[in-house]
C-alpha cells in the first residue's frame, strides 16, 4: 500500500496517512510503498523504512512475547498442583508431597515438556535469520 508519512505538528509523533488528503495542510509528507504503516520509522533525524534487520528484531520480540503468554496459559492450567505441593512443603509433610507427586505425575511431566518446548521455541525464534522463517514459526504446543 502507499502511505504518506509525516511528523504530526501537534502530537509530535510519526503518522502515516493512507490517503494523500489525510495529511494535514501545510505539512510535508514522505511517500512510501509499504506492507503496513508499521514498516516506517522516525529515527530522530529522518522518516525512513525500517531495515530488514529492524523488522526481524521487532518480529522476534513479538514472537517471544506471544510465546511467553502462550506458555503461561498452558502452565496456568496445572498451577493448582504446584500450589498443593508447595503447601505440603511449607507444612514439611513429606508423605503428602510424595503422594501428590505420584498422583499428578502425568501433569508434572507435561509441565516439564512444556518448559522444554518453550526453551526450544525461544532458541528457534532467536536463531531465525529471515522474516519468512520467523513468520512460519507457529506457536502451538502439541506435546499434550
Amino acid at each position: 500500500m502507499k502511505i504518506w508519512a509525516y511528523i504530526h505538528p501537534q502530537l509530535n509523533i510519526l503518522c502515516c496517512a493512507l490517503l494523500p488528503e489525510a495529511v494535514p495542510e501545510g505539512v510535508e509528507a514522505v511517500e512510501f510503498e509499504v506492507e503496513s504503516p508499521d514498516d516506517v520509522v522516525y529515527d530522530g533525524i529522518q522518516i525512513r523504512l525500517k531495515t530488514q534487520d529492524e523488522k526481524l528484531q521487532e518480529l522476534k520480540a513479538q514472537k517471544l512475547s506471544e510465546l511467553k503468554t502462550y506458555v503461561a496459559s498452558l502452565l496456568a492450567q496445572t498451577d493448582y498442583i504446584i500450589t498443593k505441593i508447595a503447601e505440603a512443603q511449607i507444612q514439611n509433610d513429606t508423605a503428602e508431597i510424595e503422594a501428590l507427586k505420584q498422583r499428578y505425575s502425568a501433569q508434572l511431566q507435561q509441565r516439564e515438556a512444556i518448559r522444554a518446548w518453550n526453551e526450544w521455541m525461544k532458541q528457534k525464534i532467536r536463531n531465525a535469520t529471515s522474516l519468512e522463517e520467523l513468520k512460519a514459526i507457529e506457536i502451538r504446543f502439541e506435546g499434550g
Partner: protein
Amino acid sequence: MAYTRRPFDYTGTLSNQVQNDLNLANDNFDILAQAFVSNDPATGTVKNADTVDGFHASQTPAPNVIVPLDASGVLDLSATYVKSNVYTFRRVDLTNATSDYELQVGEEAIIYFDTTQSTTKNLRTATKEGLYQMLIWAKYDTSINNYQVMLYPNNQSYTDQFTWLGICLDEPSSVSRSTVTFSGFNLGRIIEGGLYVCYFSTYTLGKFMISWHVVVGSSGNGRLCYFVQRWNDTTTPWTSLGTISTAGLINGTLVILVRRLT
C-alpha cells in the same frame, strides 16, 4: 364550464328554455363523469379518492406519496427510508463512495471490501462524536492467511497511540492475554474466516473500542477473542471512521456494516 347544481328552471319563459336546460344538464353529467376514473361513473371509482390531505397513495415510493403495505403485508420502501426525530432507518452502500458520508443516528452503511484487489479499504464514513457499531464478516476460506486486520481512524496511523488489551481463548483450552500499543485499532487476525463485532465511542476526550471476534484457525480450531482499546490522545478529533487494512492480499470479500447509534 362551471357546474350548476340545479340546472332546470321551471319558471323560465325563454322560447328555447327546454333546450337550454337539457344542454345544461348534459354539461353537468359531463362534469360529474369526469370525477370518476376514465371519466366513467360505471367504474365505481372516484378520481383522487386515494388522497389524504392531498397526498396520493401508491405502491411505488416517491416524494409526497403514501405507501400501503404490499401483498405480503410488508411496508416496502425500497430506495427511500424512514426517519424520525431520533432514528433513521436506512442502509447506504458506501462501497464505491468517493467522499465521506455522514451517517444519521440509526442509519447503517454497508461496505464490501474486495481483499483480492487491495489490502486497504477506506470506509468513507464521516464520524461525529458519539457511539457506533461495526460488524465485519470474512467468509470461511482455507486460503486466507493469518493477517492482522487494523482500523486506522482518520485514514492514518498514529505511532504507539493505541493501548490494546486482548484476551483470547483458543481451542482446545489455552487462554492468552497481552497488552501492547499499536498505531491504530487492532481488530484481530483473519485466519480462515470469522465474524468481528466492534463498538466504539468517537468522543475526542474518550475514544474507545471494545470488540470481540470468533475466527477459525489454520488447524480447524476456533478462537474467541475479546479486545478493549483506547486511543490515548485526547486532542485529535475522530472525524473519519478510517481505513481497514489487512496487511496482505487475501482471497475473499469482507462485508462491513457500520451503524451510528447516537
